[in-house]
């Protein structure tokens, strides 16, 4: 399951989407909104996305991961719109027979998403704002 949504992300949903009787491992990554960046206090931030293309990139990431490791299922969700400190911005869940594949595929998914998914982050500080990459 993949999605880009303005709704709050659900870790329960991610876990339920990938949990399978033949899988002994589920790796779950949650990216959360941090209250600082480069020494500046972050007051709030907002993500925007090219939704259709981002979901296509997520599907590619999931397919590439499934072609590389023996996986049960892959779940990738990213939130857009205004987010508060501590909110989950991205949730990735991967199930596999054993833990090594789940960890590796989950790491691959978040690292690739950060490089390729057409999603932009705008941070707001006490004074000013910035588009933050990487």
């Amino acid at each position: 399951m993949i999605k880009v949504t303005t709704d709050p992300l659900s870790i329960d949903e991610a876990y339920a989407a990938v949990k399978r009787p033949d899988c002994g491992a589920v790796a779950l990554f949650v990216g959360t909104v941090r209250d600082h960046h480069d020494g500046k206090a972050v007051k709030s931030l907002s993500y925007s996305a090219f939704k259709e293309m981002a979901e296509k990139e997520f599907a590619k990431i999931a397919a590439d991961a499934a072609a590389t490791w023996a996986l049960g299922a892959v779940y990738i969700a990213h939130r857009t719109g205004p987010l508060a400190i501590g909110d989950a911005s991205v949730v990735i869940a991967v199930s596999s027979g054993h833990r090594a594949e789940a960890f590796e595929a989950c790491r691959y998914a978040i690292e690739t998403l950060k490089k390729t998914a057409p999603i932009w982050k705008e941070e707001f500080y006490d004074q000013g704002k910035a588009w933050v990459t990487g």
Partner: protein
Amino acid sequence: MKVSVRLFGPLAESASTSSLDVDVDLPTVGAVVEAVAKTGLRIDPSVKFALNTDYAGAEAVVRDGDVVSLIPPVGGG
């Protein structure tokens, strides 16, 4: 040929719009990007391009009805 262009993130902010149309003689992504640059929008070399919903190079051929998007450096995650 008239081509629809979508702008995102900092580029949409710079242009004060998230979409525009350009006219090109040559039906390539590169020609579309050049036409966008001629409107005065500064397009950094770090900007990537998409043809509809896939990344594409400047040489990619644009067909009638296609949408070209300018993808500034991303920051998801």
